[in-house]
């Protein structure tokens, strides 16, 4: 198909920013490269200098991999403050910013352009060349939620093209398989996942994970972060000592990097055996109930889709394909969080009986 005017200008802008990254890397004395195995894909992060490294890499540290000559995705990261390379002015007006920060005329079939408001980052992806660019004015004021879940849009876009779906979900499991824990913020996803650290269960993720419905449902770890309200985090004996932002809990949620302190509890992926919709409840103990798949989709899809820029219809199809294959449960958490791991294991045991042989 002939290139449209939007195709040309989106690609031109991408290449201009790529050039600025190269200049920034040169000023910094060469790029710093880090490699990761994420959902079975080899990903390279190439930093123009060290400023952004300590803000971006901790959440991904559990997926560190050996250097590769042919990474499947390379993301270039730079900031203007430490490299003195200024970002060029945006070639669009203020009106061009749509909700989620997508720049409509600079989004084509293969070029993704997003300015993430609040986080104040420019995110670009070229799915033809499998390269992305991340820019921020400075590294020092990156919000805590970006440190906990970096490059989220980039991973959503690229992984979606490669059969993996980013979900606003937690996941824990056993060696036989995992449960996907879904629901809006405050529903108890993090409570459920973090409570399971106080057991032998495997931790996959707390706030965002990747999934694949084919050839069989699987969940992949993306971030090793746990994120909880400060007061709530103090209820978990294993988390309270390892909170990374203890001195800022008046304005931030508590962030802890699980891999740093519990490296053996994290797995890169597991088969998925069940979907759990947690619910905060006042009962004495945790209890589970079967629910309909439609109820599970209603808990999973809106909270994920409303956060994701672009490709939402395809994302929804991947979510429904996943849910259709799995038994679904509601888990009333009860007041005693120490009972949550056993309840999750009971769900997985029951799910095992539901799955076709």
């Amino acid at each position, binding site marked *: 198909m002939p290139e449209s005017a939007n195709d040309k200008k989106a690609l031109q802008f991408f290449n201009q920013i790529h050039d600025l990254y190269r200049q920034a890397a040169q000023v910094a004395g060469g790029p710093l490269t880090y490699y990761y195995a994420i959902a079975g894909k080899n990903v390279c992060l190439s930093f123009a200098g060290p400023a952004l490294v300590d803000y971006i890499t901790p959440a991904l540290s559990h997926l560190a991999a050996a250097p590769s000559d042919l990474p499947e995705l390379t993301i270039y990261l730079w900031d203007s403050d430490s490299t003195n390379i200024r970002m060029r002015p945006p070639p669009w007006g203020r009106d061009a*910013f749509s909700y989620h920060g997508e720049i409509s005329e600079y989004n084509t079939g293969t070029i993704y352009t997003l300015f993430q408001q609040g986080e104040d980052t420019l995110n670009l992806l070229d799915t033809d060349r499998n390269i992305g660019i991340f820019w921020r004015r400075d590294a020092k004021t990156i919000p805590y939620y970006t440190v906990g879940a970096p490059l989220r849009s980039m991973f959503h876009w690229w992984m979606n093209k490669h059969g993996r779906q980013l979900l606003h979900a937690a996941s824990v499991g056993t060696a036989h398989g995992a449960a996907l824990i879904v629901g809006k913020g405050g529903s108890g996803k993090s409570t459920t996942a973090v409570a399971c650290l106080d057991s032998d269960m495997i931790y996959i993720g707390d706030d965002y994970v990747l999934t694949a419905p084919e050839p069989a449902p699987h969940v992949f770890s993306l971030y090793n972060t746990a994120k909880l309200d400060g007061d709530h985090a103090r209820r978990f004996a294993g988390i309270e000592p390892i909170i990374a932002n203890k001195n800022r809990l008046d304005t931030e949620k508590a962030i802890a990097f699980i891999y740093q302190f519990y490296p053996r509890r994290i797995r890169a992926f597991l088969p998925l055996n069940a979907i759990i919709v947690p619910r905060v409840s006042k009962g004495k103990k945790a209890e589970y109930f079967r629910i309909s798949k439609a109820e599970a989709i209603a808990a999973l*899809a809106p909270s994920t889709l409303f956060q994701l820029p672009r490709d*939402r219809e395809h994302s929804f199809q991947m979510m429904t394909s996943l849910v259709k294959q799995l038994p679904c449960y509601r888990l009333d958490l009860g007041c005693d969080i120490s009972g949550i791991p056993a309840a999750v294991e009971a769900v997985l045991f029951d799910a095992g009986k539901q799955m076709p042989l």
Partner: protein
Amino acid sequence: MNIDTNIYQVNSPSVINETIEGESVIINLELGFYYSLEGAGAEIWDLLLKQIPVSAIIDIVKHKYNAHPDEISTSVNGLVNELIEEKLIVPVDNEAGKNVSKIIESDHNALKIEFVTPKLHKFSDMQDLLLLDPIHEVDEAGWPYSKDEHK
């Protein structure tokens, strides 16, 4: 009551939906609302997606469900109006309606199901995820920045 012979379709790409095991989940990606329908409501929704005229949908529901015909007509029309008000469906400019006679014949001998007035359940608890503050500040180069540097 006017007979609605209109045909409708999902208001895509703003609206996406899935029906599983007789329950429909409908999401309005632009406005941040999501909905559920079950029973007769999910069935009416599926028939609308098949671009069957509303008048024919009423006939199908009357044939399948046990209730006074006026109750069924009122309920179906009420649901359709609600779906239009919520911007979940839009009219299709297509005069060719689907042939529904086969749908009715296939259920000819089936026992009628008890009719429960369809209810469109609407959820707005995640709308805040879509409500971005408008851009207030931009730097000298024209890039937005958040005033609250300590986040």
